[in-house]
């Protein structure tokens, strides 16, 4: 049931965020997911672009103390508020790029191809990459402003983000699937972009939400986690250790499964998809909470609502 709700919300969000601008919908410059401004007519701008540019690290020191600085602060507050409101649910329920990745996963499941499993050690090694990308996203524009980096490193993360090349395809625009031969910097960045895009598509086919392992937006969410109003919470006393939550996790997290003492939940790699809550058949063990109140709690009935065998793939 929860999975179906997520599917519906994801698709609605995709339509709004990808095409909303064409109908006069624009949610501003601080959308906490990959609502890509490279998509003409998008319904809101991914905050990462603004953060690298005109409402963030792209501002000069002088601009920071002026009106533009205030504006940057405004959008930061808007982002923090929006990110806190839904927490990781932005990733699991709203992000259009996440939905594209999920489509690849549904295709893989339909074909019965086994999933690529990353060991815990591998995941631990890959997890810091998102923070490096966040640092790159912040540092790059500063270095450009200081003249230490070529101006074409402007929007340094957007230049290599697979969302830039792949999302515009859904409005018929293929111009970002190109190598940009203008100079060596644009060429290098576009080569990295094409390689990242190709690897993302291939990787996301075999491994659910592979890109999210590296997503700097997730890094931002993790930094803001103490403010999150929507959380996934575990009551370890009710856990029977079956591992269903771990198997259902889009990110192959086993932290939730192995937790025995604290009410941990959506930290680290969690994308707030609620799959763990739906898969857990121990009543009340896992819950999706908002402001401390339970929105959905695990139960045998909810778990049995999942189609597990014969019939169409689980949503």
């Amino acid at each position, binding site marked *: 049931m929860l999975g179906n709700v997520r599917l519906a919300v994801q698709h609605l969000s995709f339509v709004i965020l990808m095409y909303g601008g064409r109908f*006069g919908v*624009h949610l501003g410059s601080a959308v906490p997911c990959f609502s890509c401004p490279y998509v003409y007519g998008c319904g809101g701008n991914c905050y990462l672009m603004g953060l690298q540019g005109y409402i963030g690290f792209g501002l000069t020191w002088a601009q920071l103390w002026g*009106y*533009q600085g205030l*504006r940057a602060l405004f959008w930061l507050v808007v982002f923090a508020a929006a990110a806190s409101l839904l927490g990781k649910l932005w990733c699991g329920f709203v992000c259009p790029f996440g939905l594209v990745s999920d489509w690849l996963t549904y295709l893989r499941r339909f074909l019965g191809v*086994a999933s*690529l499993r990353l060991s815990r050690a591998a995941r631990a090694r890959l997890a810091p990459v998102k923070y490096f990308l966040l640092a790159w996203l912040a540092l790059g524009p500063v270095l450009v402003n200081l003249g230490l980096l*070529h*101006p*074409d490193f*402007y929007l340094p993360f957007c230049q290599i983000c697979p969302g830039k*090349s792949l999302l515009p395809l859904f409005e018929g625009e*293929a*111009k970002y*699937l*190109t*190598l*940009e*031969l*203008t*100079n060596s910097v*644009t060429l290098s960045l*576009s*080569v990295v972009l*094409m*390689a*990242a*895009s*190709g*690897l993302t*598509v*291939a*990787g996301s*086919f*075999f491994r659910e939400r592979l890109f999210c392992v590296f997503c700097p937006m997730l890094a931002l969410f993790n930094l803001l986690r103490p403010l999150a109003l929507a959380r996934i919470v575990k009551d370890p006393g009710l856990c029977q250790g079956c591992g269903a939550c771990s198997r259902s996790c889009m990110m192959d997290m086993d932290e939730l499964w192995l937790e025995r003492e604290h009410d941990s939940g959506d930290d680290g790699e969690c994308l707030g998809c609620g799959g763990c809550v739906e898969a857990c058949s121990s009543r009340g063990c896992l819950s999706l909470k908002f402001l401390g109140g339970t929105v959905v709690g695990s139960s045998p009935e909810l778990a049995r609502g999942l189609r597990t065998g014969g019939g169409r793939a689980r949503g």
Partner: protein
Amino acid sequence: MFWLAAPPLSRAGEASIYILDLAPPELAKSGLARAEAGLVVLAGGRAAAAKASDVAAEFFWSLRTAYLRGGDDHDAGVGYYQAASGAAGTVVTAGGYSSVDLRARVVAGGGVEHFAQTVFNLYGREGSSAADDSLAPVPAPAWPLFELTSPEPLYWPQTGQTFFLKFIPGDRGDRTVGADDGASDHDAVSDHDGAGAKTIVADNDAPADNNNGGGPGGRGLPLTVWEEDSPAPLFEIWAGADGVYAFTPPADPGLDAAGATSAKKLIFVRALPGGGTASLTLLVHRSREARRDLPLGLGVFFLAMLGGGGLIVAGRRGARY
């Protein structure tokens, strides 16, 4: 001749510096020196130089086409709409921008008139939300005017983008034959980063039709194309049968290497009967789209995709259940 250009980021109501550059070789003989105008504030139909220069300059500006975002004081609501051309009473507000014609006139020794024009984007001042209705429109002077169009969207003028210039002499002399026939329907041909204009000083000899208007013998007087600091014009273009000049700025390796926001000034100069000149200055950036190679990009994309997928499949070759 002289030319003028606006800085890359101009905001309504803010102090802006417009450089009036009087080309020394032409006017030095007439005693006019190279000068910079001081602060120029666009506060109405007329703008005045706050700091006097050696040359008295008279300015006129108008909104070419305006794209304004509706705010509290507008009934349009959120969205974009097109205001009437020449609605000088409307000041561009926050979130909006407008393409603006700025024109100036100087009188050199002997009463010879020189006109300069530039087209630039004027952005709404941050924080401004109310239109300034105190500005009264002024009648447009009958100065020579260049009408600039392009078949491609004018993000900002770029190399490789084809520009069509129609010269309207006003009451200053002969107009290009056919120039008042209204907008011509030009093919949206864009020879991105078109090379091969008929250049005077450049090395490239390959002619391109759209930079020549049919070659010498085309209608009317030619336009010469200068770059800032170039000692002599780089190109000479002639109007086509419809009286419109077509020009595609060729790629500039310096611009390509410098960055997306770097720009150079291209100055189009048309001689006037009576010895004067009219110029149009464009701030040209490097082409945003010309250097995109789709086949190469797709090649790298698919190589990475197949390579990554292949590695994964190869890694699980032994596992059969």
